C-alpha cells in the first residue's frame, strides 16, 4: 500500500517537472550552464527517473530522506523540526473533537428525532460544510482581529512555555475539531440509537439497572467499538485539514512545510512529507483496526481465537 502510494507520488512529481534547479536560481541570466549542471548533479537530478526513485526509497530505509533542493538542509532535519507541531495539533484536535462529540452524541441519541436531536443534526450538517481552513479564517477574524484575545500567527513550542503554546494551538485545534466532531457525532449517534434499541438494553432495563447505567455502560460501550473504526477516517480528515490550517495560522508544521515546498517546487521535501503523512494515516487505520479487534471479541476470526 505504502509502496503504491510512494510510486504514485514520485511519478506524478517527475511527470512534468518545472526544473527545480532553475526555480531555485530564479533566473537563467548570468548563470553558466556549468553551474546548472553541477547543481543538477549534486541533487542527483541527472540520473534516470528510476534510479532517482531507487535512491530515494533506499535512503528512506536508512532514515535519510535526501537534501532539500532549495535550502541546504537535509529533508530529515526539516521534517524533524516540524513534525512535533503537526503531531501536537492533530492529537489535540482529535481529542477535542472526541470530548465534544461523545456527550453530544449521547444526549442526541437518548431521544431520537426529539428537539435536541434535530438541532444537533442541523448543526452537524452545518459543521460539515466548513472546510477547516475557512473555519480557521473566521475564528481568526473573531478572536484575533476583532476581540484580540489570542495571537493570530506564530508558534511557541510546548517546551518553552506551556501557556503560550496553548494560546497558539487553541484556535487551530478548534477549527479542526469543528469539522471532525460532526463526523464523530453522526456516527456515534446512529450506533447508539441502534444499541439502545437492541435486546440487551431491554434485558438490562428489565433487571432494574438505572437509566444512566444502561446508557453509559451498556449502550455506549457497544456503540463505541464500531465508531472507533471511523477514527482512521477522522484522522485522515484532520491531517488533510491541518495542512491548510497550519498555513492560515503560520504554524511551522509539516502541512505548511508541504505548502512551502510545493510553491518552491522543492520535490525532495514535498515527496517525503506527503509520504510521511500518508504513512501516518495508513498506520493509524491499521492500529485502529487492530485495537478494535483486540477490544471486541466478536470481530475475531476463529483462527485468532
Amino acid at each position, binding site marked *: 500500500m505504502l509502496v503504491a502510494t510512494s510510486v504514485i507520488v514520485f511519478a506524478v512529481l*517527475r511527470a512534468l517537472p518545472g526544473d527545480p534547479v532553475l526555480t531555485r536560481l530564479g533566473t537563467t541570466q548570468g548563470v553558466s550552464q556549468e553551474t546548472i549542471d553541477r547543481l543538477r548533479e549534486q541533487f542527483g537530478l541527472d540520473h534516470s527517473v528510476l534510479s532517482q526513485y531507487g535512491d530515494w526509497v533506499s535512503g528512506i530505509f536508512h532514515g535519510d530522506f535526501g537534501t532539500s533542493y532549495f535550502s541546504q538542509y537535509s529533508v530529515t532535519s526539516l521534517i524533524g523540526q516540524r513534525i512535533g507541531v503537526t503531531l501536537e495539533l492533530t492529537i489535540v484536535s482529535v481529542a477535542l473533537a472526541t470530548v465534544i462529540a461523545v456527550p453530544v452524541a449521547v444526549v442526541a441519541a437518548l431521544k431520537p428525532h426529539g428537539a435536541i436531536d434535530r438541532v444537533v443534526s442541523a448543526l452537524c450538517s452545518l459543521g460539515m460544510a466548513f*472546510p477547516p481552513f475557512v473555519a480557521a479564517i473566521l475564528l481568526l477574524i473573531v478572536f484575533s482581529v476583532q476581540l484580540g484575545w489570542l495571537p493570530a500567527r506564530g508558534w511557541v513550542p510546548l517546551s518553552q512555555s506551556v501557556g503560550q503554546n496553548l494560546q497558539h494551538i487553541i484556535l487551530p485545534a478548534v477549527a479542526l475539531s469543528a469539522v471532525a466532531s460532526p463526523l464523530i457525532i453522526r456516527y456515534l449517534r446512529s450506533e447508539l440509537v441502534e444499541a439502545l434499541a437492541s435486546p440487551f438494553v431491554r434485558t438490562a432495563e428489565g433487571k432494574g439497572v438505572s437509566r444512566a447505567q444502561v446508557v453509559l455502560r451498556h449502550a455506549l460501550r457497544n456503540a463505541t467499538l464500531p465508531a472507533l473504526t471511523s477514527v482512521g477516517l477522522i484522522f485522515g480528515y484532520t491531517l488533510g485539514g491541518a495542512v491548510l490550517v497550519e498555513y492560515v495560522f503560520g504554524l511551522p508544521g509539516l502541512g505548511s512545510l508541504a505548502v512551502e515546498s510545493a510553491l518552491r517546487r522543492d520535490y525532495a521535501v514535498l*515527496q517525503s512529507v506527503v509520504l510521511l503523512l500518508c504513512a501516518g494515516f*495508513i498506520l493509524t487505520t491499521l492500529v485502529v483496526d487492530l485495537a478494535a479487534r483486540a477490544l471486541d471479541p466478536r470481530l475475531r476470526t476463529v483462527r485468532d481465537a
Partner: protein
Amino acid sequence: MPEPTTPEVPAAGGAPAGAATTVAASFAGDDAAAAAAVAARGARRRRLPRPTMLGFATTVLGVIVLLVLAAPLFAADPDAQDPINAFAGSSFAHPFGTDDLGRDLFARVLDGGRLTLLIAGGAVLVAFLLGTLWGFVAASRRGIVDELLMRSADALMAIPQILFALVCISAFGASPLNLALVVGVLLAPTTARMARSAALQEMSRDYYAAAIAYGARQRRLLVRELLPNTTGQLAVQAAINAASAIILEASLSFVGLGIQPPDASWGTLLKEGYAFLYQRYEYAVFPALAILLTIWMLNVVADQLGGRPKRGRA
C-alpha cells in the same frame, strides 16, 4: 402496480430497456417492496418531510448558480478600480463594500464564483466519467481485474486529497483546466468505489440476469442496464464530489497554487481577504460565506437524496 418514487430505486418497468421489459415487469413487485422499505427507513431517520428540504436546498443552489451566471447583467464591473473608495463599507452601491483597489466586492464574489463553479462542474464530470467506468469495469470483471482496480483506488484514497492536489498542481501547473482535471481525478477513486458497490447491487437483480440471458453485450450491460439504474446513487456522489471540488479549488487557490490573479475565484478572493484581515475583515468573510452556503446546500442535497454512503473502511 405501485410506482416507486424514491430516486435510489428507479421504476422497475422502465429500467431494462428492450426485450427484458416483460421479464423485469413480473418482478416489479419485489422492487416496489424494496422501494417501500427504503422509504420507511428514510422516514424513520428524519422527520422533516424530505421534499421540502431537498427543494429548499436545490432552490438555493439554483439561485447561486443563476446569480453567478447572470452577474454581468446587473452587478458592477468586477475589475473597475476606484482607489479613493478602497476598503469602503457596505453601501447601496457596494452591498459587500470594496477591496484594496476599490473594486466592488459583491461583483467580485459573483465573478469569482463563475470560475469556482466551472472548475467544480468540470471536476464532477471528470470524476463521473472516470469513476463510473472504473467502478463498473471492476464490478463486472471481478477477479484479478477487480482486485487490481480497487487496490489502486485504495492507494489513491490513502493520500489526503489536499496533499495529493498540492503534488499534482505543483507538477502540472495551475490552469483552470488542469485544476478541473486534477480535482476530478482525485475524486474518481471514491466515485469508483461507490459505482462498484452500486453496480454489484444491481447485478444481483433479475433484470440483469435477464439481460445476460438474452445475450446482451458487455457494453450494453454497462451503459444501458447498469448506468440508468444507478443514476440515483451516482447523483448523490456527484453532489458530494461537487462539494469536495469546491473545497479543493478554494484550498489550492488560497495558498497560491490554484487560480492565478488577475483571474479570480472564491479561493483567490479568500487569499486576498486573508492578506487584509486587519484592514477590513469583511473582505474574507463574504467569499467564505459563499463557499460555506454552497457546500452546505450540496451536503443537504446529498443527504436528502439518499444519505451519505458510508465511507468508513472497516
